[in-house]
């Protein structure tokens, strides 16, 4: 699903440049539940941005769903993001003046789905994250965990190939963290590839594969065998 070979990325800082990713090789197959662990500055966010087509790499190869990503223009990037990727952010990034339902249906709008169809699909996904009754609420009427669940519904609504989650539990307390992680696990159990970036061990522990990143290189890539059991909700 995601194949990365010898990926390099540097950012110009004044006259110098900061070498953030120094040759990453990573292969994520369909249906995997991967977490990228690393402290801040390790390059994990940069990696996610490149994987999420929000940023471009300098060197190396990146294949998404078998398609090489190279010299992507904005328009093409938008189409690929809409088609293959679903994003979950640390700060939820819901549009404040839209209801939960409208937020979830927005990606479908950009995909060109008809209004009626959109509402129906979006409501299905809200139901899936257990927030059907909250469909007409604005984000500021929802709790942090609820907001993140809306964001997850929004990420899933276009039926992407990969869900990219950037510190999905960073702004949540431990109880809600568990419920959000349970949701991600459920999604993964249904066959979705989930790619989580985190600096929390407890979060990484709940994924099936942990990739540790330090100073722009992968230091370890292990299958997580002592996976915590899925809680029954």
């Amino acid at each position, binding site marked *: 699903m995601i194949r990365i070979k010898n990926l390099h990325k540097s950012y110009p800082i004044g006259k110098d440049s900061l070498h953030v990713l120094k040759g990453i090789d990573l292969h994520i197959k369909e249906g995997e539940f991967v977490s990228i662990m690393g402290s801040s500055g390790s390059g994990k966010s940069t990696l996610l*941005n490149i994987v*999420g087509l*929000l*940023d471009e790499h300098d060197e190396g190869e990146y294949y998404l769903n078998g398609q090489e990503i190279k010299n992507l223009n*904005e*328009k093409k990037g*938008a*189409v690929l*993001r*809409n*088609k293959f990727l679903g*994003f979950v*952010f*640390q*700060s939820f*990034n*819901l*549009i*404040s*003046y*839209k209801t939960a339902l*409208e937020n979830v249906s*927005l*990606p479908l*709008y*950009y*995909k060109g789905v008809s*209004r009626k169809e959109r509402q129906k699909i979006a409501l299905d996904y809200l139901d899936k994250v257990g927030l059907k009754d909250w469909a007409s609420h604005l984000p500021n009427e929802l709790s942090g965990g609820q907001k993140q669940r809306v964001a997850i519904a*929004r990420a899933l609504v*276009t039926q992407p190939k990969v869900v990219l989650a950037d*510190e999905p539990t*960073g702004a949540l307390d431990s109880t809600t963290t568990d419920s959000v992680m349970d949701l991600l696990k459920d999604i993964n159990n249904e066959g979705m590839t989930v790619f989580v970036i985190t600096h929390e061990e407890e979060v990484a522990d709940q994924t099936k594969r942990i990739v540790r990143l330090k100073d722009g290189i992968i230091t370890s890539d292990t299958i997580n065998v002592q996976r915590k059991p899925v809680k029954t909700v």
Partner: protein
Amino acid sequence: MKFIFDSDTWQEIYGGIRKNKTRTVITIIGVLWGIFLLVTLLGASRGLENNFKNIFGDFATNSVFVWSQRTELPFKGFQKGRSVRLTTNDVEILKREYKEIKFIAPRSQSNSAITRGFKTGNFNISGDLPVLDKVQKKDLVYGRFLNENDIKLKAKVCVIELEIYEQLFDKNEEPIGEMVTIGNISYKVVGVYKNGNISFDGSAAYIPFTTFQQVFNRANRISWMMITANEGVDILQMEQDLLLTLKNIHKVDPEDKKAFGSANLAVEIGKVTGFLTGMQFLTWFVGIATLIAGVFAIGNILLITVKERTKEIGIRRAIGASPIEIRRQVVLESVFLTTVAGMLGIIFGGFVLYLLDYFLGSGPDPTLVNPTVNIPIILFAFLILIVLGTLIGLIPAYMATLVKPIDALRDE
């Protein structure tokens, strides 16, 4: 262009606008004010123009008035300072010599007391031919104007102004056939007329020219004359020619500028219409300038909005909005705001014109007559507005596409 008719597009724009009520209102007011000023000023200046047209409407505009004074140059043995008098003979000669003269009206005027029973008043008395009605249309309230028969018979009839009627008659009293006394002689009232906005004779009683000459012992001497040329005649040239002919008849130096006085109605009206043209130009200038300022205000506010909404734009980009879709939304917002503002401005402008018409456009002496703006002008202004709205929207739209989702979504 399909997206314009897509309800979803408008749903998005409505959402964006509703979220920022204050800025939307402020933005709209800017443009609204511009188009409001344009509509109101254009309508008011049209009203003034109509009013002027009304004032001059009673006159044949290609008219010249000629009167006599004293010479300023000695000529052929005559001393300077000799007074010359226009006569009916001059009128006959001019009528014969100038084929381009349509009407020529000799005027003999005096003033006298007019009495009816115990009521009396001092008024202008004017001896006139029926042709006066052609040069300056008389607005008759009762009866008729003087006719050829009156002239031929030297009839003792008169046509009086409404004010004279009001002074000498009771309210709603029938004046036709009643007798009034002008300087010891009784005249039968055959008509009552009403003065327009401009009158050279004041509240005058018109009596037949021939009667006047006899009663006031004027022989063939007249006070002045009104001459109207045929359509398309160069009235300024004719004025000069007429004066030369008159100077020739009365043995006056052709260079003498004082012997005859003249006034040209076309020139006087030209001054006023020139003023009106200037005012209309000013109206357009002020209106369009205000409109542009308003549209710039919209652009400015949208630019701020784009900055404010960086995050939202970033989110939209991340979930699959292409740059074109983002740009389109900003431009459409701009066009939508200008359109709504424009429509409201036109409605308000129309309402104010209605009020102007109501308060200033009625009554006996209106300041503005029918203050309106042509629909094509409105549509033109509206079109300009939409074009400007689109163009100005392109700037913030471009700024919006510069927003990189990665920067917008970076967590602080």
